[in-house]
């Protein structure tokens, strides 16, 4: 936390982020189409310090999105709790914002970008709402596109509009669900830096859910690795790379490679029933290995 991107003196005035987000013993099952309840989250616990950027990685289908929806208050956990400071999170709280993966659906095509951003603001006059939304668009470098429609912009720009929407209120915790998964690789690196810059400037805590280990290591203070379904935490890696980070320098840092390997080992080492220790409750012995996991046959890591 010592040297944070542009943190010095630019933090948004008046907003204090000093509470910890605590996820404790969260379990969640979801009903499948055939009516049976499938366990998605098996006992997930972790904490996010004020201003910390935590990445959650896991194999696809692990239940990352379910975890994120539970943390955000979109889903109630079956067991366990999510607390922020002393406050329990039930419906999406005012201090929490979400960036969804699919900007083409989360931005509404019948609203101009300004209105899409202003949608997240309430409890103020129209003028102030629009002013603030315009400010948020300015902040992500899209001030000139306030009057355009989202579908007139490129994918990366649209996700920046979504980012502006998430950050236009007084946000203390930003939750991102694979926010860069739907854009091309170059745009992706730009967006990653954009998010790091805003995080540095505004000082919120952030949870980044991703299946991209490199992205998690590049961005986060700490990476939490999830097992495949039902998801539990199999380990975490503190990322001690210096900030500000930079795509060229950081990714060429030997330490980056080491950390990348550590996280990958955690992620790759799980997913087979035997590796995680005791067999998990829920679906019986049948190894529920999703098709995307066949790579683990070769790389046999702990």
């Amino acid at each position, binding site marked *: 936390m010592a040297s944070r991107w542009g943190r010095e003196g630019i933090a948004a005035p008046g907003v204090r982020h000093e509470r910890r987000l605590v996820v404790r013993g969260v379990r969640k099952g979801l009903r499948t189409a055939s009516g049976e309840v499938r366990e998605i989250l098996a006992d997930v616990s972790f904490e996010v310090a004020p201003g910390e950027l935590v990445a959650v990685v896991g194999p696809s289908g692990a239940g990352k999105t379910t975890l994120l929806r539970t943390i955000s208050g*979109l889903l109630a956990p079956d067991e366990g709790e999510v607390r922020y400071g002393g406050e329990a999170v039930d419906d*999406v709280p005012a201090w929490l914002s*979400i960036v*969804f993966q699919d900007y083409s*659906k989360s931005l*509404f095509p*019948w609203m101009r970008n300004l209105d899409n951003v202003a*949608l*997240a603001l*309430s409890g103020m006059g129209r003028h102030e709402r629009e002013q603030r939304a315009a400010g948020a668009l300015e902040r992500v470098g899209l001030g000139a596109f306030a009057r355009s429609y989202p579908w007139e912009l490129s994918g990366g720009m649209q996700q920046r509009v979504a980012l502006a929407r998430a950050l236009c209120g007084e946000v203390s915790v930003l939750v991102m669900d694979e926010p860069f998964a739907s854009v091309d690789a170059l745009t992706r690196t730009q967006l990653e830096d954009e998010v790091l810059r805003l995080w540095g400037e505004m000082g919120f805590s952030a949870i980044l859910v991703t299946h991209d280990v490199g992205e998690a290591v590049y961005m986060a203070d700490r990476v939490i690795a999830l097992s495949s379904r039902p998801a539990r935490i199999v380990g975490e890696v503190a990322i001690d790379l210096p900030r500000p980070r930079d795509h060229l320098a950081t990714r060429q840092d030997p330490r980056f490679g080491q950390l990348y390997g550590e996280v990958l080992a955690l992620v790759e080492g799980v997913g087979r029933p035997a590796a995680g220790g005791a067999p998990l409750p829920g679906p019986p012995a049948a190894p529920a290995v999703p098709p995307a996991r066949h790579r683990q046959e070769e790389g046999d890591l702990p």
Partner: protein
Amino acid sequence: MTTVGLAGGTGAPGGRVGRVASRLTGPAASRSALGLTGLLAAFAVWQWTSLLVHNPIYPSATSALSDIGTMFTGGNLASVVGVSLVRLGLGFGLSGLLGVGLGLLLGYSRTARDYLSSVVDFLRSIPFPLVLPLLVLLAGLGTSTVVMLVVLTALWPVLVTTADAAASVDPLVHDVVRACKLSRARAFRRVLVPAILPEILAGLRVAVGVSLAALVIAEMIGSSNGIGYFIVNAESSYDSRATFAGVVVLGGIGWLADTAFLAVERRALRGRPS
């Protein structure tokens, strides 16, 4: 639908006329040019077949049009059409309000859907013109009976398309509504209705046609004025010219209603990706 089909714009199947017209004045003008061409062709076919048939039961296009003119200026056709238009507006408007309202309720509320979807399916399979005599006994001859039948008939396409569209709105939209902490009223006004506006409008457009058909049926039996009564009255007095005039006017009302509706639809969907 023809208007939409022909509206293919600058691209494909516009035909030579369309292409020439669009090169001159743009797609909107070409659309009306094509529409006019089609109408003229239809009248030409009518005129030609009437000359072939040569029977007073089947008047020519020109004589029918001049009849309409005299019936409007000298006769009572204007007031007849006026009465029907008011009923059409009332019936369609009420079907739209009820259909969209109930459709939103059914589509967005799982509970309402569980309770009401069987009732809706039961009611909408009833051909309500069959119970028209009962409506007449209930409400007498006149506007209330006619409007009731129109609503009972035209309500369903609006309700069903609205409810289906609402029920299949992407779950992410609901997540966004919650993530943006929208109040219920604001959610409906800004998101949940606009999200399905194209489908609502499609349902309403079907209802325009259904309303007109129901109107005529209702007026034939349940009323002593209006265009439906005018036609059935002309038929029973073997006045084929008045019958034809009435039918042509009816077609004109339908065409006008649909054109007006399309204009409203275009306006309502302005600023969306096509």
